[in-house]
């Protein structure tokens, strides 16, 4: 620590102490401007003194100016010596007063010069801003300042922090300040062994994400007397982190599983209930995503006010559109191929090629931009778990779709007829159920659900003509694994595969994890050829 810096800090502290006294008169704007202009001339050490003087005023407007300075965006006009903010205007700079924001006219680009800073000055500015804000009246500002000091971990700030601790009334911030103090002490080679020994558990308890790194760093350069203590704190932390890591992994798994569930649940109907293998299922998902894109484009054009609610419009639109496409496919192609699953596979593959190429021809092969509504962006942290909103809503949506489908199958006349036709087609026909219509509607329902999945996936994946291809194999895996003709099987299958995938990833990497999952499914089918929730009885035998 240079003597110069120490003196500057002491000076600043001194001024600060004076500044804390509330009766001190606030400096006028003119005086402040003079102080700001003093930032430009002289050497770096002069600049340091000027910064200290500015901080001593305790004016809250100083901190953004200092910030700008540390970013290197503060300029000085050579002719007047004024320090200003600038903005490019063609070949000139428009200058504004940093304090009041008043317009100071344009100057040529040659006439203004950057106020230079070096790393040392940046550090001084950081701690200066920290000081200013640690003692501000606004609790949020104090909290942010404490956090920034904690990250810097510069022992210079210790006296200042103690100062603030003494004055702090808010218990939450007080704890944070104590944590920050522990962080600084632990990383300060000059601190005594006892002090550091006391600091280690505090750091470990802080729950801060950087605690592990800090403790590891401290462990590396700690004297032997300290090593055991720090190691103990570190072990406790690692255990916690591992536990939270597992929870986080489960969440990622559930999130992936719900995506798989959305993609596969339509298949569970077409493949599971009807025995139709629909290779164009992925393309239905893709069409749903493109419907979302189209809906958003139309809303942007005709009713920009509704942009937040575009998904609410896109859901029914996607469902209807893909259901209609599905019904057309069923009536046009699939109905001639009932009872010939392999031919159905080939024909629907052909349809999927045609659909993909159509979308490519209409919209081009590139990704389309689909915007997220504001309530689906951002994330929330919960102890060691972070949940992004869009994933959260997709999980909710998957659950909702699943429950809705259960209701449709078990509580509506259509569901009853569907089950009747799948159990015994000829008997159902004899009872007056129009089996062809039920076939078409069932296929439409499965396709419509795929369209809904497409709306959800458009929020987290690239909307391109190849969107569906990425999901088709996984969806089939889910259905095969979960057992055919059973929604619960699909649910369990999707979640199991999702969670297993996320737990394998850290050990095996994403690709190898996927391969392992495929191998596991193949081995699992050895044990249970009909999946988890197989139905028993003669009807299943081909």
């Amino acid at each position, binding site marked *: 620590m240079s003597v110069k810096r120490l003196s500057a800090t002491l000076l600043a502290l001194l001024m600060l102490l004076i500044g804390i006294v509330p009766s001190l008169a606030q400096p006028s704007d003119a005086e402040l401007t003079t102080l700001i202009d003093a930032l430009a001339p002289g050497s770096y050490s002069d600049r340091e003194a000027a910064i200290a003087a500015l901080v001593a005023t305790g004016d809250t407007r100083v901190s953004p100016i200092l910030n700008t300075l540390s970013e290197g965006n503060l300029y000085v006009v050579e002719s007047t010596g004024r320090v200003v903010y600038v903005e490019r205007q063609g070949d000139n700079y428009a200058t504004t007063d940093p304090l009041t924001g008043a317009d100071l006219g344009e100057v040529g680009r040659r006439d203004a010069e950057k106020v230079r800073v070096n790393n040392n000055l940046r550090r001084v500015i950081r701690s200066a801003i920290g000081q200013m804000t640690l003692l501000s009246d606004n609790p949020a500002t104090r909290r942010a300042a404490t956090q920034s000091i904690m990250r810097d971990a510069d022992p210079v700030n210790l006296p200042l922090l103690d100062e603030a601790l003494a004055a702090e009334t808010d218990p939450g911030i007080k704890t944070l300040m104590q944590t920050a103090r522990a962080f600084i002490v632990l990383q300060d080679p000059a601190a005594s062994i006892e002090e550091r020994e006391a600091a280690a558990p505090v750091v470990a308890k802080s729950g801060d994400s950087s605690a592990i790194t800090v403790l590891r760093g401290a462990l590396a350069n700690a004297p032997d007397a300290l090593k055991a203590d720090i190691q103990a704190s570190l072990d406790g932390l690692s255990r916690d982190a591992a536990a939270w890591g597992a929870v986080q992994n489960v969440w990622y798994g559930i999130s992936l599983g719900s995506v798989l569930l959305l993609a596969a649940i339509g298949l569970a109907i077409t493949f599971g209930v009807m025995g139709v293998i629909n290779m164009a299922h992925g393309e239905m998902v893709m069409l749903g995503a493109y419907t979302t894109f189209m809906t958003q484009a139309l809303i942007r054009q005709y009713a920009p006010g509704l942009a937040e609610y575009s998904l609410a419009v896109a859901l029914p639109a996607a469902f209807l559109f893909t259901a209609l496409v599905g019904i057309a496919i069923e009536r046009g192609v699939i109905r001639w191929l009932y009872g010939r699953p392999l031919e159905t596979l080939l*024909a629907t593959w052909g349809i999927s090629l045609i659909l993909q190429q159509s979308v490519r021809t209409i919209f081009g092969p590139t990704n389309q931009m689909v915007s997220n509504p504001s309530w689906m962006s951002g994330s929330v942290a919960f102890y060691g778990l972070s949940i992004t909103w869009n994933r959260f809503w997709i999980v909710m949506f998957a659950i909702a779709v699943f429950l809705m489908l259960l209701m449709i199958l078990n509580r509506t006349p259509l569901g009853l007829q569907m089950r009747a036709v799948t159990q015994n087609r000829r008997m159902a026909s004899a009872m007056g159920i129009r089996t062809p219509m039920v076939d078409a509607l069932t296929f439409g329902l499965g396709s419509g659900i795929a369209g809904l999945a497409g709306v959800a996936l458009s929020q987290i994946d690239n909307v391109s003509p190849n969107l569906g291809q990425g999901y088709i194999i996984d969806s089939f895996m889910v259905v095969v694994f979960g057992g055919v003709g059973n929604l619960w099987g699909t649910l369990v299958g999707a979640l199991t595969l999702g969670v297993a995938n996320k737990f394998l990833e850290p050990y095996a990497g994403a690709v190898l994890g996927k391969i392992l999952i495929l191998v596991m499914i193949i081995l699992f089918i050895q044990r249970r050829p009909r999946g988890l929730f197989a139905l028993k009885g003669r009807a299943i035998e081909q």
Partner: protein
Amino acid sequence: MLTQALFRALDTKAWWLIGILIAAAILVPASNLLLSPGQFGYVPTYLVSLFGKYLSYAMLALALDLVWGYCGILSLGHGAFFALGGYGMGMYLMRQIGPRGVYGNPVLPDFMVFLNYKELPWYWLGFDNFWFAMLMVILVPGILAFIFGFLAFRSRVTGVYLSIITQAMTFALLLAFFRNDMGFGGNNGLTDFKDILGQPIAAQTTRASLFAATAIALALSIFVCSMIVNSKLGKVMVAIRDAESRTRFLGYRVEYVKLFAFTASAIMAGIAGALYVPQVGIINPSEFEPSNSIEVVIWTAVGGRGTIIGPIIGAILVNMGKSYFTSALPEFWLFALGALFVFVTLFMPKGIVGLIGQWRTMTTKREQAPPNAALQPSSPETSQAAERGEDPSTMLVEPKPAE
């Protein structure tokens, strides 16, 4: 024994085919090498390579037909066996580059130098020897098919399920080969080949010889397939295709018959891949794309499955169409391919060969059964019968209650 097999195995059609192929294997290279451009009957070099490629595709389609047309196993993973064989050949060719690569390392291929490999991975050892490489071309697809088939057939995974699992296998291999740290060149694959068996790979003579080798290999495959399908084993295979449960009840070990067909077919596909690579000069993971495997199915279906000649006709015709349209009307090709899938399954279940058979019966006005009885009911009434589950062989997968 062998002579018996020969005389029983090969009907006149197969002999004709083999004869034509051997004639082509001699005449095409000869015309390419001996005649000069502009003379009548001269075959330009690019056409020789192109048709060599088609013939290796035809061999792949024939391999698929052995399991699908004759045994009822719709494999969507034959592209993977083809690509594995191709990689075997590609590895041999990479080792033949020697110090002529960009980085000039005598042992390590360029991409390994680029990825800071210090030595050859163990699985690359021996690939500088041609015969060892060819052994691997046969063994790797064969063993993979054997293990996979053993697991799948033992647990009686049939029909569509089997197709999906073979597709998943292909997909898994695609993902694996795309990785740089697998040591197979990542997504660039293996390319920049220089020599094959000491001959410069781009030379006219080499290309002509490769064509001849492919034609001979295809002729051999036809011979082997024909032998298999006309033997008793082949009859059991057809029985499995038409009614698996009944065949099992008659006491045949269905799993083993299927396993034999699947493994033999995979080996054939691997050899086709090994012949394909030196003629196109590159092998990369996109050969593992599931869509490639399913395209092979459509070649077979277009030509006519359950026949020896069908898949060969189909592969050559569809690929000629593909070569033409992808350059002339690139957008149109995928539409055409998609439409082909739909059209063939709906209206031409027996493919071109079936059409010729129908046309023959119409012209001669004789009620003769086509050589291969209908694989699937194609007329409306039979398919309705199937839908009602009246013919156990084509019984509908009885759907299950939805709870």
